[in-house]
């Protein structure tokens, strides 16, 4: 691997090294083992979800869009009387007198007063 002048042909030696590297032979059971593992994975739930993963995002988006259309653009946000959700009448809160009687059914001050009158008697 030297030329006439005795210079070393390093490139030729490199080529020789590259071409003469020994092959690494797989074990005789390698193919069978890999095929079995691949098929087992194929049957597993995890594999199913990994395969379905690519459909998860678009299908979730589709469901969300449908929900948005139905909820915001449909019954809950419609002026159609069919979907009318506003109260048909509003109670007049101003007319309702809020007192002990209306809330508790008795007035403690009145009770105390009555009790004191009874005590004096």
């Amino acid at each position: 691997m030297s030329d006439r002048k005795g210079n070393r042909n390093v490139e030729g030696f490199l080529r020789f090294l590259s071409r003469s590297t020994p092959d690494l032979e797989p074990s005789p059971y390698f193919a069978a083992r890999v095929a079995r593992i691949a098929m087992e994975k194929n049957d597993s739930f995890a594999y199913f979800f990994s395969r379905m993963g690519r459909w998860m995002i678009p299908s979730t988006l589709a469901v969300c869009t449908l929900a948005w259309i139905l909820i915001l653009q449909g019954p809950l946000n419609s002026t159609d009387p069919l979907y009318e959700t506003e109260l048909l009448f509003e109670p007049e809160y101003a007319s309702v007198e809020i007192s002990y009687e209306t809330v508790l059914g008795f007035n403690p001050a009145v009770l105390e007063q009555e009790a004191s009158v009874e005590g004096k008697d």
Partner: protein
Amino acid sequence: MKKSDSELIADILEGEQSAYEELVRRYQSFVFNVVYHYFAKREDVEDIAQEVFLKVFQGLHSYDADRPFKHWLGRIASNMCIDEFRKRKRGRMISLESDLGKDEKADIEQLYQGAESNSFLSVGGTEAGLHFLKKAMDTLSEKDRMTYVLREVEGLAYDEIGSMLGTSVVAARIRVSRARQQLKAKLEEMLDV
């Protein structure tokens, strides 16, 4: 009669395990040898080759039958090798001189003398050559290394390499040439040329 790759793939997609076994057997040597030029331990090579074939199986439904299967497989194998190699290489500086002992340098010199005189090569000498080649290739970039392995070790054509690595033929040629120059420089250093 031997089935074509496409026929085997069609059988695999129908759930035939033996078809996949046949396909793996057909290409296992190719994958092993590509991975072998990145990783020294046999167990590592076997693990990564297995991962490659499992990934191939998972992606078979998206395989484009118009492309040669070997190119598609080669692309998956090279990507996996490069990724795994980067993970393991991270944080580790590689020094060729410090990794090669005096005995190994002597082995390479002996191997060179043997190659020069066309004498019968000892197994030890060939192993030293492979060891040196791997150490020297550690200094190349991952893509240059893969391109060099596919061209110079596996003997693939440039257009095949381009298809496998997703680069143009010209880019593949440039990578091989650059890798060759770098390896040659390392070898000259070792042989005191």
